[in-house]
Structures are given as C-alpha cells and as structure tokens.
C-alpha cells in the first residue's frame, strides 16, 4: 500500500517535471509553492498541473470502477466498458459533434457524462427484468449487447459524416492533453460520490465473491450491494471518460494487479486499485510525452503499450484470481 502511494507520488512528480521543456523538480516545487512568473513556473502551473490533476483523478476513478465491476459481475473480463459506459459516453460525444452542439473537448464533457449514465441505467433495467433479477451474467451480457448496439449506431453516423469522424477520432483515442482545466473541478463532486459509494460496499463485495446464496446467509442484501457498487462505478467511469476520453485497459488490468499485490478483501484492493490506476495513467502520459518528443503519443495508446506487457507477465506468473 505504502509502495503504491510512493509510486503514485513519483508519477505525479514526473508528470509535472518531464516534457518537451524539462523542469527540474526543485523548480517545480518552487512554482507550486511560491508562484512566480518564470517560464518554467508558467508551464508547470498552467499546463502540467491541470493535466496531472486530470490524470490522477481519471486514473484513480477507472481503477476503482474496474475493481468494483469485476466484483459485481464476478467476471475477470469486466471493465468500465462492460455496462455500456464507454460506448454510451462515445455516443453522447458523437451526438454532440454531429448535431453541432459542442466544440472542443471542454464542450463534450456533459454529453459524455449523460451518455454514460443513460447507458448504464438501460443496462441495469434490462438485466433486472425477468427471473433472478440482475445476475452477474445477465448484467455482463446486457452491457455487451447494449454497447454493441450503441457502437453500431455511432458507426453509422461516423461512416456517413467525415466531419464528425474528423473530430471524434481525436477524442476517441483518449488523452490528457488539451483537456479543459476546469473539467476536474466540475467532475470532483461526482468522483467523490462514486468513490464513497464503491468503498462503502467493500464488505458486501467480499461476500458476493462467495456466491449469492452464501452472501445472503451472511446477512448481506445481495441486490443492494450490487446496485450500490455498480452505481458508484457508473458515476466514476462517466466522470473519468468525460474528462479524459475513453481510456481503455486501466479499469481491466489494474484490479488484477491489485488483487495480486494484497490480500485481505476489497477493503484493501479497492483503494489500491485507485492508486495504481492513477500511477499507471500518469506514467503512460509521461511516457507518451517522451517517446516521440516533441510530438506526443496519446495517453490512451501508451496505457495499452505499457500496460499490456505487465498484464501478460502477471497473468503468466500465477493462476488468475477473480
């Protein structure tokens, strides 16, 4: 846990100091504490600080949401995309671009947010119908089906309107640069609420891992735990995707890492997933600045290229715990 915290701090420091214009760490501290008008100070404060803040919050949110959803659906393949969240957000953005309602990343935020929430509500409503309520398998399948349908609809728009595709492809890749600094402020209340909801369910999620019947016997209200955790994950993902675009992979891989590193149930794995998610996204963003300097590789691409080898090694080393 402490190690993860250190890792995250190191990632923050790197994110503030590294770039096309390297700034020594002492100068970074100076700029943050005393302000000042030097060029270095301006770069750090006006460009890198917001970018780092978005990376921290979005990474933590995705890691936490992924851990919660893997527990809710009892499926190691679950990630924030599974309840239709990412596709819902993407549909909101396509709708905004095609309708000429919003321009630039700052304008997409609310459309992405609303799209993700609507998709998740639909998935839950569908899965909860019929016998047995919203079982893990039904949730996952309903999410996948709805995701695919929404993706189909957005593809229809994208393949028939090149102007929309031209803007959308840059949002879709997921990146921390060029985002609106005010976004983090707007998203903070949602992130806090989502995190609280998920963390409050930690014990219930532990029980869910034993199967529904055992959880009930232990006195947990299975359906309530599921709804509460899924709702928290929905809000977290919606806010993260709205802020940074659909950054893949963090929500999928980080919970596996966390479960590998600590035992002791979700009270430990949930916060650890948040920390690791933040560290991974920031590290990927920094790497993306360095790899092809002065050009940048979007963070969404780097998370995949950096994270995949790590996941493969992890998965090879042990049996996969779910």
């Amino acid at each position, binding site marked *: 846990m402490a190690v993860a915290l250190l890792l995250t701090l190191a990632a923050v420091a790197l994110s503030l100091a590294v770039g096309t214009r390297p700034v020594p760490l002492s100068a970074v501290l100076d700029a943050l504490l005393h302000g000042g008008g030097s060029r270095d100070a301006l770069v750090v404060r006006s460009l890198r600080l917001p970018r780092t803040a978005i990376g921290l919050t979005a990474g933590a949110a995705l890691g936490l949401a992924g851990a919660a959803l893997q527990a809710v659906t*009892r*499926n*190691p*393949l679950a990630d924030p995309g*599974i309840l239709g969240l990412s596709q819902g957000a993407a549909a909101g953005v396509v709708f905004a671009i095609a309708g000429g309602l919003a321009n630039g990343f700052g304008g997409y935020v609310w459309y992405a947010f609303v799209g993700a929430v609507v998709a998740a509500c639909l998935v839950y409503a*569908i*899965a909860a*119908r*019929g*016998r*047995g309520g919203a*079982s*893990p*398998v*039904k949730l*996952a*399948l*309903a999410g*996948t*089906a*709805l995701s*695919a*349908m929404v*993706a*189909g*609809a957005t*593809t*229809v728009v*994208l*393949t*028939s309107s*090149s102007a929309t*595709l*031209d803007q959308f*492809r*840059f949002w*879709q*890749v997921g990146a921390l640069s060029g985002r609106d600094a005010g976004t983090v402020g707007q998203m903070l209340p949602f992130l806090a609420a989502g995190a609280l909801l998920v963390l409050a369910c930690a014990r219930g999620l532990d029980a869910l891992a034993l*199967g529904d019947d055992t959880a009930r016997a232990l006195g947990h209200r299975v359906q309530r735990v599921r709804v509460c955790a899924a709702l928290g994950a929905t809000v977290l993902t919606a806010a993260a995707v709205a802020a940074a675009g659909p950054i*893949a*992979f963090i929500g*999928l*891989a980080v919970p*596996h890492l966390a479960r590998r590193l600590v035992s002791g149930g979700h009270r430990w794995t949930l916060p650890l997933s948040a920390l690791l998610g933040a560290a991974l996204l920031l590290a990927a963003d920094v790497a993306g600045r360095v790899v092809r300097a002065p050009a940048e*590789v*979007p963070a*969404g*691409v780097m998370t*995949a*290229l950096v*994270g*995949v080898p790590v*996941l*493969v090694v992890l*998965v*090879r080393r042990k*049996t*996969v715990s*779910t």
Partner: protein
Amino acid sequence: MHRRSAAVVAMLILLLAGVMLLSACVGQAYVSPGEVWQVLRGHGGPYDLIVGELRVPRIALGALAGAAYGLSGALVQTVTRNPLASPDVIGVGHGAAAATVLALATGTVASPGALPAVSVAGGLAAAALVYVLAWRHGMQPSRFVLTGVGIGVALSAVVQLYLTESELAAAEQVKLWLTGSLNGRGWDQAGPLTWALLLSLPALVWANRALRPLGLDPDTAAALGVRVHRFQLALTVLGVILAATATGAAGPIGFVALTAPQLARRLTRTPQLPLVTSALTGSVILVTADLAARTLMPPLEIPVGALTALVGGPYLLWLLGRAGPGARRAGW
C-alpha cells in the same frame, strides 16, 4: 430436448431461406420472387446482372461469413467457458485490423486485392501469440482470455494511433474496412470461406462428443477420459481459422460471434452451446443485417458491421429479460 433442437434447426433454416430470398428481391430495383427463381435456374433474362451477379453472391457470402462467425464464437466460448468471449477476445479481429492498417501505412501492399490475405495472416498470428503467451503448464481459460484481451488492446491502440496520425481520407477508408461490409464482395471471397467451413465439419463431428464434458470443468472432463488440452487447442485453432477467414472475406464484423451462440443456446435450451444452431443463427443475423444495410438509407449503404449489433442486440436483450431455464447456471 432433442426434438426441440431439431425443431429449432428446421425453423432457422426456413427463416434463413426466407431472408435470403427477400434480400434477393429488394434493393434499388424490386425483382419478384418468380424472376429471382428464373435467374437462379440459369434462364437468364433482364435481371441477370442485378440479381445473379450482384445480389446472390453477396447474400451467399453473408450466409457463409455469418455461419463461420457463429460457429467460431460457439467454439471459443466453449473452450474459455466465458459467455463474453469471442474470437475477437483472443485477438483475431484486432490482429487482422492491425495487420491491415500497418500494411496500408507502410505501403507494403500494392493492390487492395492482397488485403484479405494480410488480414487473415494478422488474425492467425495474433491468436497464436496469445496462445503462446498464455500457455504455461497447460491452458487456463481465464488466463487465455485475459491475455487475449490485453493483446487485443495493444493491437487496437496501434490502429487508434494510425487513425489520429493519418489523413482524414485514409482514416475514413480504414474506419470503413474496420466496420466490415459485404459491398462489392461475392464469389471471390466466398471460396476460402466455403473450404474452411467444409473442412471444419469432420472436426466438429469429432468434437461434438467432447463438448459436453468441456462445458463442465476441466477436472471432470479429464476424469471422463477427455484429453482436455488437446481438445482445447484443436477447438481453438478451428475457431480462430474460421473467424480469421470470415474477417478476410467481409472485414472484422463484430457481435455475430459473440451473440449467435448465446441466442442459439437460449433457443434450444441445451446446457452446452449448440454448434449447428450457432452457425445458422450467425447466418440469419448477418444476412438480415446486410439486407438492412442495403435498404435503410438508399442510395447510401451502411457498413453491415454497424448493423449486426442493431439486428441481434434487441433480440438478445429481450431473451435476457425472459431469462430461460439455462440462464440460472452461473458462467453461462
């Protein structure tokens, strides 16, 4: 149980024939069923070009690709014992896409005609890489699937990067191919697919006997005398070849491989995934989606991959809401 399966197969065959005939009749110009029949019997006539040269090959390709996707999905989901798995999850679609994009970006492929071969090779190579990376003292389904998702994400990151770095026109071309379409395709692409499906038949008969225990857990299957690893490998290879061939023929059409087996199982109400029914369901989904792709927004044609989900999705969601008796078993 068995009678029900037979009835479902018969019903799906009728449905498929009906949709194929309808698809041959409608389009920019309406041709009556009688005239379609004349063309099919080789009597020629005014509709030879539009029905015989354009619609029929395309419909046949759709049925074949749908069957290959559906069958492939059933095999992969059986091996991984995960209803969310599909050939795409083990890297086939992403491998094909990344190979195609790299070939375009580096200009190594001179003619568009060579692209299907490139995408088949990419799909096979990616799946092989996933298998090698996930193999360690045997093959665990969850490890296999996770490795596959990871490799898939890395490959799709390459494609995403290309989409942001390329000119808009090139990005549009790639996006179109990535969505999958039967437009302008026909007998040329249907050949390899037919072979792949025919060659898989004996293997499937042999596999069908082993599928039942594989759907249980590996230990039970091994106790029943099934050589689990050999079966897992054989079925995976078969599923990957089918999916890669279909991708080369029609592009990486999503959703068919994922949902066809789940739909089929809920129709037949069998505990394990029915292979023949999955293939037929895949055909029905893809032919119907292609019909919609041609006729919804004339004269524009929607890429069929954008519609497969819109055709199969609502039905799957409706079935989920009904929750058949098989849905109670966790894991499926």
